[in-house]
């Protein structure tokens, strides 16, 4: 307990860092993921190929390597941004591949007949998408998206080793002050649990709200 109370501000900064990193990366991952998923289901071949390539490469790249490339590589191209932005870029791009796959498999669960019926009723593409396909796909997407977001929150720990202020990185400061190392990690673990459990609770609520008995 003593470890937590005496280092409250260090922990709090780290916790907020992790939280912001998670939120910012999640936003980027969702935007990119939707875009790439759109590419992957589009009838335009080059876009499809690009989407497939993006997902295949990013899903098979270790996140540490991606961080390594973004944080240390982009400055060689004379692109210098704050470390936080670099971390968001790496995490967001990496996670976007998983978001894309969750979305795509969600869209694929919608039976073909639904789209055909909508079109035969004279709906335009936009109407088909927004009124028929997406609402049904959404149900199949919520649960996998939740696991992707939890994985993202856990992955933010890597950013600490690349000069971003976040929760895991706080152990260095506290360790130097000579506090009990085991308890230091216990409180770090609690911090991560708070974030992951909050995300999982949020997605449980979402899931229950869209659930229908079929």
């Amino acid at each position: 307990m003593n470890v937590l109370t005496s280092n409250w501000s260090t922990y709090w900064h780290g916790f907020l860092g992790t939280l912001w990193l998670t939120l910012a990366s999640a936003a980027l991952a969702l935007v990119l993921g939707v875009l790439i998923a759109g590419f992957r289901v589009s009838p335009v071949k080059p876009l499809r190929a690009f989407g497939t390539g993006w997902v295949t490469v990013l899903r098979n790249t270790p996140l540490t390597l991606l961080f390594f490339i973004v944080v240390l590589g982009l400055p060689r191209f004379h692109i210098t941004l704050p470390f936080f932005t670099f971390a968001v870029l790496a995490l967001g791009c990496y996670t976007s591949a998983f978001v894309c796959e969750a979305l795509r498999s969600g869209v694929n669960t919608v039976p073909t007949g639904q789209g055909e019926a909508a079109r035969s009723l004279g709906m335009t593409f936009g109407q088909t998408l927004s009124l028929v396909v997406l609402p049904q796909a959404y149900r199949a997407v919520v649960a996998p998206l939740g696991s992707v977001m939890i994985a993202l929150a856990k992955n933010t720990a890597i950013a600490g080793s690349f000069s971003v202020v976040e929760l895991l990185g706080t152990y260095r400061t506290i360790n130097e002050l000579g506090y009990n190392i085991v308890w230091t990690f216990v409180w770090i673990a609690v911090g991560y649990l708070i974030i992951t459990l909050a995300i999982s609770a949020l997605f449980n609520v979402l899931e229950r709200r869209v659930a229908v008995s079929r």
Partner: protein
Amino acid sequence: MTVESSALYDVPGPKALARHRLYGILALVVIAAVVGWVIWMLFHTNQFTYAKWTAFQYKGVQELLLRGLGNTLKAFGWTVLFALPFGALFAAGRLSDHRPVRWVSTLVVEFFRAMPLLVMIFFIFVALKVEPLWALVAGLTLYNGSVLAEVFRAGVLAVPKGQKEAAFALGLRKTQVMTYVLVPQAVRSMLPTIVSQLVVALKDTSLGFLITYEEFLHAGKLIATNLDYDLPFIPVVMVITPIYIGMCLLLSWLAKWLERRGRRSPREGATPVADAGPVLDAQG
């Protein structure tokens, strides 16, 4: 037109086809422009000069990279070796008839799945003062083993109930039911998922870089930060990234291949001709 997008689009007519072609050309132009910019940037920042690539000619550098790759594979091998029994053990624990065993296993599995892997690795490395290799392997084993435990459990539970009932009706003991009836069937359906999880483990060996384990990325960093070779960071990335992605892709393809092979298994309503299944359904 692919099958997967047919819920969204009709079969295109001549006008739509022309439009798609136009979009395709526009997309190609944009992609080509981005690729061109990257290549121009590479030349502009002098990444292809002789000095930056000369390092790879030295035997010492090549050996350093190979040693790093070997260490990565070593950590991966140990992880596979430990994580599979760990997963099997705790899956059995979660399926146990004894409540305390079930509770303890559930607690362990859920805890290690919820913790960020890197936090565990750092804890083992910093607090327990374990060598980097074993800290990495222990962390990877705990995490991937726990995920595998869930995979195993789901696989065993997914075997049709009649199998278990029939086995009990024949008078097999519960251990026999598990080992002779449920597990052999479950392994078939789980194999792709297990291999996919191994891809995750292989990717995560790169976390060893953060605890100064001398793996592949570490070797790359050593070369990239060497002033004698004119800081060849981009060349190093261009060498190690394809190797990493290639290794993971190979494993991913193995998983996909296993999945495709498993799909024409007797599980798909062909139970009566179980033995002849693979021959009869060869086109599946």
